[in-house]
């Protein structure tokens, strides 16, 4: 179709159809006109606008009933004209507006007439919509004069009726959209921005419609879900737009006191106009509040997320525009938004968060006291209900309740202090938190799980202080706990820290029931105050004052580490805690004079149950976690607090309860990280002065000694030799403390002494031990070498020499001393090294050796302690001391001399266990004090040992497989294993060796347990080293596999009692040994020299 660009051409084209239409108003004619319109350009049509509209309007105005289809096509045609043109005349706009509205109105006379068709309604609505868009800015405003109020009202009510009652979704939506345009809140950007005055005018005008609109819309919103989400969304949007306009704080603030007088001719209209004075505002706000409540209730649980999203927008819009006028409604509105933060739909969630953020950032709450009041009121009522809700709700319910609480707090932001300053609010809130956080303390495992002994050194970079998983009485969901954490942190972030800490410290000390929860809350508060892990909406107004934080932390730490709160009964260990406990009371009573008297109350408590112990364990853990938190918060600043905090934590790291020691290790790791230490070892090393101070002071109190020694123990395990100068004086303290309480504390202190000595041996002992080994193997080698020579160059001259020597030796032995000078000359070189060893003895002993000597001194006293445990421990310590004093023979020997009598008693008349250990000590001692021990050993001990071996042998020979688990077996084994080397070390005399050999021989029996046989073999192997010849003889007398031919007929034939014996139980082992002996001494069978050896 041709396009008519010029008005003339267009006129030419349109005129016939217009005329036609004027003549006969038929659907066909209208359609023709419409068809022609399509060919006319916009500009041309603008010129002809009124001309074209005329027949259309005329057709509409014709009185009498009209065909619906005709009306519909007319309206559509008008609509398409308007869509292409602008309405530039006010009259035209008004007339068109009213004409279109009339189309929608039901015929006044016949109420019962058939309702209009849906298509028609839709067409009219769309036409109205188009009309509103085609009107010029100024022109459209003419519609919003008071004089047009009735007309507007008419339109509004029509559209509302449609929106509410119409079934068709499309109509509903269009009607609502049209209404939105009508109240000048169209979504599209084409409209002119109204200035303030104009807006004010419109507001005045729309105020008249507000009741109708709001009521109807609220019905639409709360309507049947089946209507779909779109109408609801539109209705919500329209609702907040109109309310936001009419109730805007900005506008209301400008309303004059009294109503404006309109010219007289408008008096009737004037009655319709509403004056938005304060009374009106108040009553309207009340009514709106009800409606909003209804809206919020229905839409916050609407299944479709877009509806919920729109609700968020509603709150956002109203909060931005009407935060004062609608203040009473915000309790519902904020609740809705805050609750929707955890909406299942992520878009709703994020929008919610943004809106909340916006609210916070614009300080809407902060600047609006009333709103803050509303929030705090909400908070109060929520806090009141919280314990009940936590009891009754399931975990999901708890999550939503708590997120509501969290939301309120976040929204209040810096205004939280209003709430906190009110005692009842704070009390409600804290009680609720404390109740919710109640731990479940029924788990027996917590109490039972013990640390495996002995504790290894604290690992490098222990698992970073992750909080221990806690079990709560009222919930299991982790999310709930996280929310509670956030609640506390937000409180800490915004709240007055001193106030909060004071309050919760009060709860902490008020009752044991609240203590754990209060501690947990305190920890989180501090974290929050430092801004660690807080999820906040707006920055706090006053930045954190580090000194305040430090002050609070210090006071909390003091409370945590108070005797009454730090040292709790966590086990019923008979070994340790029972004496400790009673002493604890004693110690506390002593302290009570100076400190708080509340401690004394503890002593009257009923006997501990598993439940209380569990609870105590948790309390300690929570407090330990707190220490970790505080360190993390203060960073390097925490180093100053290590003075008082490190010792108690370390004490707990050595606790026997697994949970506590693990937590303490975590705390140590936290401290390391916070204070910039590379490892726990580093931490301990660099703060050893603090630790030593605490240890030494604690050692002065009998009751604290076990714990102090535990820490010293831990320190020693985790440190190196550089620690020694510092701890020297503490070890002296330990020793003097031990001197004062041999009876009661011996086992405690022995543990310390043991770790002291272990540490010393580890730090200083190693090289000398190696050296010793070296020396020893040298000796062995030289012996082997000399024997090697022996073997290779055995000549007749040598045999001769041997006899000569033998004869002269024998003569000397008989007292016939030949040339004395020669002897002396021989001994001179021997005497030389002695002075040098003397000077060595005079040189000051290194301090570690001195310590070892001092410790050894105590061991002498304790060796005859009544308790076997103690004696065993002493023997262990003694062994370490001996090892330590190895290089200082001059000091070791006198000590050994003093130890000897007590040690002998252990060896010959004590529990087998003690004998076992004592024998080990003896072996160690033998490494250095060979000569010293030889005599005494053979005199005091040997016969006893051999006789015990002999007497036990029949029993072990008879015994079954279970025997190897008995103590007697272990003792036999140890003796057999040790005797050989002992004999070798001590360089025992012949008769003693024979005694040993005799005792051990029966253990070569095949009837003996294999292990004992092996051990007995080892004895003989050692004996072979000391005296191969006699051993050979001894063994050969038992069993001799081969005959020996004398090398010369002048010598008597060899006769050994073992020759030709029948095979017996000893045969196998003896043969084996003889074989070994052969290997050792050389390959071939023994030569005649053997027989000639003195026996």
């Amino acid at each position, binding site marked *: 179709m041709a396009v008519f660009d010029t008005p003339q051409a267009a006129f030419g084209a349109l005129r016939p159809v217009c005329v036609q239409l004027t003549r006969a108003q038929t659907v066909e004619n209208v359609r023709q006109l419409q068809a022609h319109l399509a060919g006319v350009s916009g500009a041309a049509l603008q010129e002809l606008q009124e001309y074209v509209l005329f027949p259309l309007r005329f057709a509409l105005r014709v009185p009498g009933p009209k065909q619906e289809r005709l009306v519909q096509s007319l309206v559509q045609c008008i609509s398409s004209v308007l869509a292409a043109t602008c309405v530039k005349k006010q009259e035209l706009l008004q007339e068109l507006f009213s004409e279109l509205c009339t189309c929608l109105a039901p015929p006044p006379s016949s109420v019962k007439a058939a309702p209009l068709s849906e298509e028609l309604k839709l067409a009219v609505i769309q036409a109205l919509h188009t009309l509103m868009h085609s009107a010029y800015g100024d022109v459209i405003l003419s519609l919003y004069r008071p004089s047009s109020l009735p007309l507007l009202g008419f339109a509004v009510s029509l559209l509302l009726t449609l929106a509410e009652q119409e079934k068709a979704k499309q109509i509903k939506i269009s009607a609502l959209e049209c209404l939105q345009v009508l109240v000048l809140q169209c979504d599209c950007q084409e409209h002119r921005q109204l200035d303030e005055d104009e807006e004010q005018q419109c507001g005045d005008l729309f105020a008249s419609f507000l009741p109708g609109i709001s009521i109807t819309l609220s019905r639409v919103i709360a309507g049947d879900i089946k209507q779909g989400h779109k109408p609801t969304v539109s209705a919500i949007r329209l609702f907040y737009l109109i309310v936001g306009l009419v109730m805007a704080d900005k506008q209301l603030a400008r309303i004059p006191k009294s109503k404006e007088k309109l010219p007289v001719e408008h008096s009737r209209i004037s009655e319709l106009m509403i004056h938005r004075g304060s009374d009106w505002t108040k009553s309207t706000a009340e009514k709106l509040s009800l409606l909003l409540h209804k809206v919020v209730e229905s839409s916050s649980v609407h299944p479709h997320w877009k509806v919920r999203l729109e609700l968020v927008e509603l709150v956002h819009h109203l909060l931005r525009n009407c935060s004062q006028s609608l203040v009473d409604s915000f309790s519902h509105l904020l609740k809705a938004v805050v609750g929707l933060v955890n909406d299942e739909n992520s878009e709703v969630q994020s929008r919610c968060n943004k809106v909340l953020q916006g609210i916070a950032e614009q300080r809407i709450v902060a600047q609006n006291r009333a709103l803050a009041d509303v929030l705090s009121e909400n908070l109060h009522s929520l806090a009141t209900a919280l314990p009940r809700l936590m009891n009754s709700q399931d975990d999901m319910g708890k999550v939503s309740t708590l997120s509501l609480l969290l939301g309120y707090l976040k929204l209040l932001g810096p205004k939280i202090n209003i709430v906190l300053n009110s005692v009842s609010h704070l009390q409600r809130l804290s009680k609720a938190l404390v109740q919710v956080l109640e731990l479940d303390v029924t788990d027996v495992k917590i109490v039972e799980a013990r640390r495996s002994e002995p504790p290894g050194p604290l690992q490098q970079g222990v698992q970073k202080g992750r909080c221990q998983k806690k079990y709560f009485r009222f919930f299991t969901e982790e999310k709930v706990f996280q929310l509670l954490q956030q609640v506390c942190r937000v409180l800490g972030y915004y709240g007055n820290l001193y106030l909060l800490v004071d309050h919760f410290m009060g709860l902490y000390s008020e009752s044991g029931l609240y203590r754990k929860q209060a501690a947990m809350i305190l920890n989180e508060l501090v974290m929050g105050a430092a801004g660690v892990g807080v999820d906040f909406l707006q920055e706090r107004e006053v930045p954190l004052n580090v000194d305040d934080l430090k002050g609070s932390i210090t006071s909390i730490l003091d409370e945590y580490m108070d005797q009454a709160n730090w040292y709790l009964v966590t086990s019923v260990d008979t070994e340790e805690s029972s004496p400790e406990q009673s002493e604890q009371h004693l110690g506390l009573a002593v302290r009570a004079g100076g400190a708080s008297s509340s401690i004394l109350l503890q002593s009257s408590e009923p006997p501990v149950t598993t439940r209380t112990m569990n609870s105590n364990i948790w309390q300690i853990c929570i407090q330990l976690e707190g220490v970790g938190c505080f360190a993390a918060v203060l960073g390097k600043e925490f180093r100053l607090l290590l003075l008082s905090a490190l010792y108690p934590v370390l004490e707990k790291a050595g606790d026997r309860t697994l949970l506590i020691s693990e937590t303490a290790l975590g705390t140590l790791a936290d401290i390391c990280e916070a204070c910039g230490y590379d490892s726990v070892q580093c931490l301990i090393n660099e703060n050893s002065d603090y630790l030593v101070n605490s240890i030494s002071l604690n050692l002065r109190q009998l009751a604290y000694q076990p714990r102090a020694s535990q820490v010293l123990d831990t320190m020693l395990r985790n440190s190196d030799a550089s620690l020694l100068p510092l701890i020297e*004086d503490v070890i002296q303290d330990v020793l003097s403390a031990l001197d004062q309480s041999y009876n009661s504390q011996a086992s405690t202190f022995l543990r310390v002494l043991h770790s002291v000595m272990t540490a010393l041996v580890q730090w200083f002992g190693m090289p000398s031990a190696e050296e010793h080994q070296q020396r020893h193997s040298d000796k062995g080698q030289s012996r082997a070498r000399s024997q090697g020579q022996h073997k290779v160059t055995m000549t007749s001259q040598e045999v001769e020499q041997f006899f000569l020597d033998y004869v002269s030796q024998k003569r000397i032995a008989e007292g016939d001393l030949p040339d004395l000078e020669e002897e002396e000359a021989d001994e001179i070189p021997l005497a030389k090294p002695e002075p040098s060893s003397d000077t060595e003895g005079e040189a000051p002993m290194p301090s570690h050796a001195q310590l070892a000597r001092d410790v050894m001194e105590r061991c002498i006293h304790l060796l005859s302690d009544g308790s076997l445990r103690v004696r065993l421990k002493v023997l262990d310590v003694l062994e370490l001391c001996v090892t330590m004093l190895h290089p200082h023979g001059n000091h070791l020997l006198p000590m050994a001399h003093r130890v000897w009598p007590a040690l002998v008693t252990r060896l010959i008349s004590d529990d087998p266990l003690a004998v076992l250990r004592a024998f080990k000590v003896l072996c160690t001692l033998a490494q250095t004090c060979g000569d010293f021990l030889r005599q005494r050993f053979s005199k005091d001990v040997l016969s006893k040992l051999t006789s015990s071996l002999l007497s036990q042998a029949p029993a072990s020979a008879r015994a079954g497989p279970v025997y190897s688990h008995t103590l007697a077996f272990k003792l036999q084994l140890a003796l057999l294993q040790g005797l050989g080397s002992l004999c070798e070390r001590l360089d025992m005399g012949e008769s003693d060796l024979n005694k040993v050999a005799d005792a051990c021989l029966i253990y070569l029996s095949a009837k003996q347990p294999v292990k004992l046989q092996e051990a007995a073999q080892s004895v003989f192997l050692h004996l072979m080293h000391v005296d191969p010849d006699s051993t050979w003889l001894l063994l050969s007398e038992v069993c001799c596999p081969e005959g020996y031919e004398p090398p010369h007929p002048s010598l008597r034939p060899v006769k050994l009692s073992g020759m030709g014996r029948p095979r017996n139980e000893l045969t196998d082992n003896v043969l084996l040994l003889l074989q070994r002996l052969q290997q050792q001494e050389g390959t071939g069978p023994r030569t005649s020299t053997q027989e000639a050896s003195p026996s």
Partner: protein
Amino acid sequence: MLTVLMALPPPDPQFVLRGTSAPVHTLHFSCGGPEPDIPLLFSGSENGFIHVWNLKTHRVDTALDGHGRKSVYCVETMGGKDRLLSQGRDQRICLWDLAEGRTSVTDSVFTEHMGFCRCSLLKVAQGRWLMAMAARSLEEVQILELPSKTSVCTLKPEVGAKLGMPMCLKLWQLSCGSQPVLLAGYEDGSVVLWNVSMGKALSQLSCHQEPVMSLDFDSEKAKGISGSSEKVLSIWCLNEQQNLQVYKTHELVNAGISDITIRPDKKILATAGWDHRIRIFSWKKLKPLAVLDYHTATVHCVSFSDHSSPWDRLLAAGSKDQRISVWSIYAQT
């Protein structure tokens, strides 16, 4: 009273400072500064080091080495923690500048004195001090003005007095601007009151049979106390005629007092004993209040802190066992 004492066991030290690695001979607090100032404790030890202890961290901030590794037996501050005076067995008295982290000796006085007599310092005007010290010749005490080091006078006992060496000195004045007076304890056990401006002995009192080891004087009550190697504490007073009179003696359990200090508020006093113990007495009636038992060797010195708040007040004792024990005791009274 006795029952109360028995009910309350003697307290433990608040903390113990370790690390001088030598016997401690002298202590001096500097805690009077306003808040940001860190409270300090100066200690002088036998190895010639002066350790500056930070009482917040309980660690050594600085170790000053100015006496050639010879024992330091007197440390005093001069009007603040930045100026320090120290006396050592190298026969020198050093003046230190410690401001802004400096550790330099600004000036020194060669005493030529061979004994152990600690010098005594008295502030007479802003930036002007009098210092009494044992001089080279055996019985003399010399008074110098600091920082100019000009000699004010030399106090010589009358010929034939046979007082022996001065053992301890206490320079004081009744009020600011009045005549400075010196109390000196001598080897023969007597205490002599000297008028410094006239250079004349005003009064002499034989308090002890043995050398006077230490003395302190309360100018308000005009009463002083001295200790020697005997088992006796001697309390004496100064009457209006400027005569020293024995007021009272107090018998001790163990012999030997190496130092006596009256707390600045004149309520209690502390003694350092050869028996390893620190004893606290009320100054008014010399009632024994506490025996502090911590050290394992002779206690060489006791010192009270100059904290501005009485609650913070501390007592420190240095001992031959190389430790410095710090006590918070009777802080409230």
